[in-house]
C-alpha cells in the first residue's frame, strides 16, 4: 500500500466485517482491534525483540567479536608487510639481515600486543553493550 494513501478520499471500510447494526458492534469491534494489535505486535515486533534479546544474552556474541578482532589485526599486519616492503623498495632500500631481524621481532611483538588489545577491547565493549541492553550499566573492565 503506498504511503500516499488518503483516508479522506479512500475511507476505510469495515475490515472486520462486523455488522454496524449489531447491538454489540462496539464491543465486537474493540475486541477485534485488540486482537489485531496483539497479532501485529507478535508478527512484526516480537522477532525484533528476540533478535535484541539474543544479542544481549548469547555468550557466542562476545567470543565471535573477539575472534573477529583478532582476525582483523592479523590481516592488517599481513597486508602492511607488503606495503612496507614496497615503500622501502621505492626508496631503493633493502634491509640488512640484522635490520630485517629487528623489524621482524618488533613487528611480531607489536602484532601480539595489538592482538591482545583488540580482543580485550572487543570483549569489554561487547559485554558492556550486552549489559546495557539488559538494563544494567557494566563496569569498565580495562580502564
Amino acid at each position, binding site marked *: *500500500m503506498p504511503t500516499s*494513501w488518503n*483516508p479522506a478520499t479512500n475511507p*476505510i471500510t*469495515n*475490515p*472486520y466485517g462486523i455488522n*454496524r447494526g449489531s*447491538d*454489540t*458492534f*462496539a*464491543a465486537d*469491534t*474493540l475486541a*477485534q*482491534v485488540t486482537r*489485531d*494489535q496483539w497479532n501485529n*505486535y507478535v508478527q*512484526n*515486533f516480537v522477532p*525484533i525483540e528476540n*533478535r535484541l534479546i539474543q*544479542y544481549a544474552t548469547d555468550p557466542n556474541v562476545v567470543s565471535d*567479536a573477539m575472534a*573477529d*578482532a583478532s582476525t582483523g*589485526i592479523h*590481516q*592488517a*599486519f599481513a597486508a*602492511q*608487510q607488503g*606495503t*612496507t616492503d614496497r*615503500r622501502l623498495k621505492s626508496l*631503493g*632500500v633493502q634491509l*640488512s639481515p640484522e*635490520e630485517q631481524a629487528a*623489524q621482524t621481532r*618488533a*613487528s611480531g*611483538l*607489536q*602484532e*601480539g*600486543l595489538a592482538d*591482545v*588489545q*583488540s580482543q*580485550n*577491547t*572487543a570483549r*569489554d*565493549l561487547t559485554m558492556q*553493550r550486552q549489559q546495557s*541492553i539488559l538494563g544494567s550499566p557494566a563496569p569498565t573492565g580495562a*580502564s
Partner: protein
Amino acid sequence: MGSKNSGKVQETAAQRAQAEHAMNQLNDYKQRWLPVQQKLASTILEQGEKGSEARRLAAGKASTDTAMSFDKANSALEKGLTNAGAAPGSAKANLAMTGLGADEAAAGGLGHLMSEQQMDDAYTQNLGALMSLGRGERATVGTSMTNMARASAEQASADAQAALLQRSGNAQLAGQVVGFGIQQGASKQGSDKIQAMFSQTGVGGSGFGTGLAYGNQDLASASGMVP
C-alpha cells in the same frame, strides 16, 4: 451504557463511534505506517548482519582513513629523516620507517575493530528504537551511523600523529615534525573524545604505537608476549 426494558445493556452511540475510531486508526496505521516500519526493520537487520554491505563500507572507510593519515605521516617522517641526515638506507631511517609501518598495521586493525563495534552499537540501538516503535513510543533511528564515519577519520588522524611522534622521537627528530602536527591538529576536532573512549578500554591516549596494551600488561605477560 444505556439500557432498555429487556434488561439488556445497549451500547451508546459514543461507544460505537469510539470503537469505529479505534478500528480506523489501527487500519490507517497498518496501511500507511506499518509497511514503512517493516522496511526500516529489514534495513536495520540487514545492516547488522555479519559481513553486510554497511559493515564492509564502514571497514573500508576506516581503512582508507588510516592509510591516508599514515601516508602523510610517512612523508613527514621521510622528510624529517632526510633533514636530520638520516638518509633512507641508514639503519635509523630503515627502522623508523618499518616501525611506522607496524604502527599503521596496528592502527588499521584496531580501526577495523572500532568500525565493527560502532556498527554493533548502531545495530543494537536501532533494534531498541524499533522496539520502542512496537510499543508505540517515539524513537530515533540512525544517528549512530553518522557518528561512526566521523570517529573513524578522527581516530586515524590521531593514531598517525601519535605514531609519527614516537618514531620521530626514536630517531631523534624532535621538532622536525611540528608542521605535520599542526596540519593534523586542524582536523583533530573531537578526537579527544575518541581517545577517551579508547583509554577506557586500555588502548590509552598515547596512540597505538606507544600505548598498546597498557591496560593489559598482565594478559600480555601471561601469554609470554612481553618479558
